[in-house]
């Protein structure tokens, strides 16, 4: 008993008091900025491992970006990554960063379905489905609930059964062998429900985009409520994105 109390005392305060203002170290690669100036655009397009960079005008698609930072190493005057980790949005187009754009990535309020804030603003239970995820996004989603990030304080939790869930969080590029099971899990979740794509692999397929072992047809006719970029997603990106999605708007 005394030993237990001692352990608790020695841990001190571990939680991040305010996740909306938490900072990450300078070397972290969050939202990139493409600076003005001449550069061999073709070289940058060719360099990117996942085709996230396209030319004229030069732009980076964070839904495809693995945040490896190689473009910034090759052309540091042209591309730099900021520590801005709030990069989740519900607008797929907003993930495309164009030259000269240094504005924060926000959610598009017009795309948020009315029932989301009325049903989920005080409590959101999520079922996670890993469909070819490499277990880094899965570790980070688990970390969202640990004593440091403590997502549970906002009423956001991962639950065991889709029957208890208000939505699903997909990680991984959606393999053919998981496609049918993902559909079953989604169908088992009661309405109204949301879909969150967590990580670059889930948003675009990432490095696996053109693999014949994928089957991404599940996403064809669905509205995705939140895209959370990252390789893997950072817990702060995920939590802040979800909080923005479910908060009450006037």
């Amino acid at each position: 008993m005394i030993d237990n109390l001692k352990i608790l005392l020695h841990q001190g305060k571990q939680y991040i008091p305010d996740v909306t203002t938490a900072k990450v170290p300078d070397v972290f690669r969050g939202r990139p900025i493409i600076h003005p100036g001449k550069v061999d655009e073709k070289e940058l397009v060719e360099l990117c491992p996942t085709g996230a960079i396209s030319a004229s005008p030069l732009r980076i698609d964070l839904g495809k970006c693995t945040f490896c930072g190689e473009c910034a190493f090759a052309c540091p005057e042209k591309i730099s990554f900021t520590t801005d980790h709030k990069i989740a949005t519900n607008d797929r187009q907003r993930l495309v960063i164009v030259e000269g754009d240094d504005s924060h990535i926000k959610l598009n309020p017009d795309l948020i379905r009315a029932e989301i804030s009325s049903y989920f603003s005080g409590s959101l239970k999520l079922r996670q489905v890993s469909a070819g995820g490499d277990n880094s996004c899965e570790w980070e989603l688990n970390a969202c609930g640990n004593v440091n990030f403590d997502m549970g304080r906002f009423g956001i939790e991962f639950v065991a059964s889709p029957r208890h869930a208000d939505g699903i969080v997909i990680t991984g590029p959606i393999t053919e062998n998981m496609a049918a099971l993902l559909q079953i899990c989604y169908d088992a979740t009661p309405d109204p429900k949301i879909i969150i794509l967590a990580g670059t692999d889930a948003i675009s397929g990432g490095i696996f985009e053109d693999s014949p072992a994928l089957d991404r047809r599940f996403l064809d006719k669905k509205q995705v409520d939140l895209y959370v970029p990252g390789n893997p997603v950072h817990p702060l990106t995920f939590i802040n994105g979800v909080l923005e999605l479910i908060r009450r708007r006037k």
Partner: protein
Amino acid sequence: MLLCCIADDAAGNILVSSALVNCSQTLPSFTAQRLAFHKFEREINENFGIEYIDHPWLKPVRFPQNRATGQSTIANYPFFRIESEELHEVGVGPIHAGVIEPGHFRFICNGEQILHLEIQLGYQHRGIESLFLEKKKLLQRTTLAESIAGDTVAGHTTAFVNLWETLCGYEADEDLQFTRTLALELERIAIHTGDLSAICTDIAYQLGSSVFGRLRTPVINYFQSWCGNRFAKSLIRAGQNHFPFNETLAEQLLKMLDAFEPDFDEMWAEFHTLPSALSRLEKTGVVTKEQVSNIGTVGMAARMSSISRDIRATHPHDLYPTLAHEPIIKHHGDVYSRTHIRYDEIKQSISYIRRLLEKIPPENKDRKALKKPAANAFSISLTEGWRGEICHCAITDERGELVHYKVKDTSFHNWLALALAVRNNEISDFPVSNKSFDLSYCGHDL
């Protein structure tokens, strides 16, 4: 051509034999004589259609997209069955209760007792080995290596870059080797600590779960301060280093470890003497030395049962020759052995890191460029990841292009050990047994 590579731990080398076979040929199996071959022959059968006449368990491995056994699908896996009035089957997964990867466990139980467990995998198959051939850029291949198993980024990426540099006739500078060795040991500390937390979770020990869980955070946050990614993605590159190590980073690392160790030791001291915890860990999920030796497990799943198998000691790569690694061995093969080994290995990794930091090699600012891979070459690379041995192989054609790339994650050997461990256990002990192995689904399914 069929290549068979077996590591000789005593001599510290790798024995390679090759034979020409026709895919339509029917072969006698090695498995009939030595169980350790069973998975490899199943894989050869599934990928290339070679039939074995006397293989006792010729079942699908992962249902790859380009399988030769095209008629079988993941939905109709041929499970072992026992017809009986007394027994019942329990299916768990592929989607599990927690936030983990998918895989299906089919139990045959007598009441609460497990008689048999069959593990069906393949849900995570992304076609990695084919993509290694299709993606032509080195950065794409490195990204693939980082994605084989996102919990073993340092392990798989080190295996890849060491293989690639060998193919290119490139000798890695000491600072590159330093980065790889340090990353491997840090990854071991991070994941082992996270696993200790998860083991506590599975026996409903809240204090251990929270404290070990939060102790993992400074370790992966250290990766984030070093290379910008909590899982060390983008840290390890063939013939390159974007994040040279320096005195400031060393200071930060020592500070982190100095803060980590007392809290970690204190929590461990409480946890490993707690009767209610020990009663769930001891004699649960036992795999004997004989079983382990028959299955041919590697890494922690061998060392838990008196078998010294550790690439860092037998085939040392990067800076491991200077560390003169001595593997940590346990003898009971139970959940407790697999828990204790993690504590000891974390302590050992910390002492290795302290030794590495005594001599930080300077960054080579005048690095040679990588050449093209050699033509008609065969290269094999062994790395000891936190789970155990990782093996990558590559074959090039007359133009130096990859014609075959093979990845073997630790888990490929070890899943069968979990299936045997839970026999005659209560089914309620399955989660903690499973977690004590913590095997990779995506590393297996590729």
